[in-house]
């Protein structure tokens, strides 16, 4: 069972490797990746350094080209594939059918994983990508319950990767247009969700207000912690009731499920957070390394250690974590 950690920068990558990641995943500094945030990601020169560093430690590096190619700039996405392969990355994580097809025909030996942005949630969809493009692994969207993950694990021949920890996308990834509805930029087209350029904070007499492209996402009383205005985690009104109609600010945490994920042969646990700091990556990686080592040694005696939970909670959105859709009660 692989521990796959995020790296939005070279220092984050070093932190992940140092604290026990089996593999890291990165993106290029352009719109081909779904975490296209200012100040993050790798230009070709730093990518070569990242590959060298990772390989020197005997670990693997995955590169996400997981937005959808624009019609008149399609070549940029193909170019990203060419560049990544030339730099020697081990795995490409891809969502767009046309890019999968390009890799299949131009680099048939290249290992390809299906990005969560492709939104493959069922056996038939997995077959679509497996038969035509030879994807070796599928990253499952965060909408499946554990029993559904289990059913898939038992019926498919591709390797499965699941999100283990980090920001919780509550919508089926790759099919959520909420961000472009409000700002014009979405994960699919721009690699962005609730982009920072559209965020405004306003200090009022009684509250602190967050807006996204001028839409009020939340208002915080002085004693409340103000979180980033991700639009699906806002506080809105429904028939006079004010609450978080979609989701509260919270992070996904699957530590409790670890033995079961292991038993079902889940190949890789993905930690979300290419936008996070090296210190965050270091702390999270350390906890998950320890937890996975426990499971590998004695899966039946595995118990979540309280110090792991404490670290993870302290690094979570709103200091809250949830098991998310993996458990039916969340739905």
């Amino acid at each position, binding site marked *: 069972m692989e521990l796959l950690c995020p790296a939005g920068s070279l220092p984050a990558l070093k932190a992940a490797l140092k604290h026990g990641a089996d593999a890291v995943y990165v993106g290029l500094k352009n719109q081909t990746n779904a975490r296209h945030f200012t100040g993050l990601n790798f230009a070709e020169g730093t990518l070569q350094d990242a590959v060298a560093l990772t390989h020197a430690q005997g670990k693997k590096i995955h590169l996400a080209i997981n937005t959808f190619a624009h*019609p008149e700039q399609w070549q940029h996405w193909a170019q990203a594939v060419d560049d990544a392969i030339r730099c020697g990355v081990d795995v490409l994580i891809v969502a767009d059918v046309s890019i999968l097809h390009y890799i299949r025909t131009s680099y048939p030996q290249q290992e390809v994983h299906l990005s969560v942005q492709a939104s493959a949630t069922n056996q*038939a969809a997995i077959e679509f990508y497996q038969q035509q493009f030879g994807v070796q692994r599928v990253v499952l969207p965060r909408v499946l*319950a554990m029993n*559904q993950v289990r059913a898939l694990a038992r019926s498919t021949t591709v390797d499965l990767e699941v999100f283990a920890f980090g920001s919780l996308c509550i919508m089926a990834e790759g099919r959520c247009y909420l961000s472009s509805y409000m700002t014009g930029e*979405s994960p699919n087209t721009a690699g962005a969700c609730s982009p920072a350029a559209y965020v405004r904070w306003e200090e009022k007499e009684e509250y602190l207000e967050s807006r996204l492209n001028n839409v009020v996402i939340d208002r915080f009383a002085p004693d409340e912690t103000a979180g980033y205005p991700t639009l699906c985690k806002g506080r*809105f009104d*429904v028939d006079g009731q004010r609450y978080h109609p979609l989701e509260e600010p919270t992070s996904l945490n699957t530590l409790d499920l670890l033995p079961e994920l292991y038993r079902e042969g889940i190949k890789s646990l993905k930690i979300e957070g290419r936008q996070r700091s090296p210190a965050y990556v270091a702390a999270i990686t350390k906890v998950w390394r320890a937890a996975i080592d426990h499971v590998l040694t004695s899966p039946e005696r595995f118990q979540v250690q309280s110090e792991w939970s404490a670290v993870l909670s302290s690094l979570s959105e709103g200091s809250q974590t949830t098991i998310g859709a993996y458990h039916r009660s969340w739905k």
Partner: protein
Amino acid sequence: MQYSLGPVLYFWPKDTMQRFYREAAEQPLDTVYLGETVCSKRRELKLPDYMALAHELREAGKQVCLSTMTLLEAPSELRELKRYCDNGDFLVEANDMGAVQMLRSAGLPFVAGAAINCYNQHTLALLVDQGMTRWLMPVELSGDWLAQILRQPEVQERRHLFETEVFAFGHLPLAWSARCFTARSENRHKDQCELCCIRYPKGRTVTSQDGREVFVLNGIQTQSGERYNLVNQLPGMHKSVDMLRLSPEIEGTWEWLQRFRANEQGNAPITLASNECNGYWLKLAGMMQQ
């Protein structure tokens, strides 16, 4: 221009549905999409009921297409999808790659719905080669984006093999989740939802704290708070769009169909209401109106 009636996205009682489609049979529509695309627990109408409606609508001169579920998770949902694909008679709209897989494996033609991620000429060409005969563009794309795709050589050489369709009227389906937001709004778990969305024939409106309509909750689906309406863009669409889709509303759908038809050449533009939008088509944030 051809006009289609999209699948009913909300959960309406059986008699409401049957009355609605009896009316639809009398309307100047070219195509009618039938089927549950949001939640597999909604079973007021089952496949045999939809098939009966499909035959009636066909006798009334409509082309009928069976629309399928968007978020497929359970093996039982795949089995139901298979029954739709194997209907033996009507064209099927795929809203998930799982459906594309079933249809292409069976050598059947299909419509690719808006939740199929087709953003460029190469993906479009691939889908056409697998049997796609109509393409409903993803809702977040603009008229410009569509034109860019259509002028690429890969698409030009296949242009006679497929039609283009654009979602032109109704609350936009913007996201699907494992969680049921309507059940959550009533403080229920999804497992004990008691199909409460049947009480909200227009979904439940979510407003921001300063009163703007932001979203509409429709079970596991989140829709745009504002109603998308391209009636005034219609005159400029004839070159790139073959069919416009109107998404059913509990009131006024047929009147809007008349207004669209009346404005084909731009002779009867409409002043949009403040809670309507057209941003996506115009390359703006979707919620904008211009």
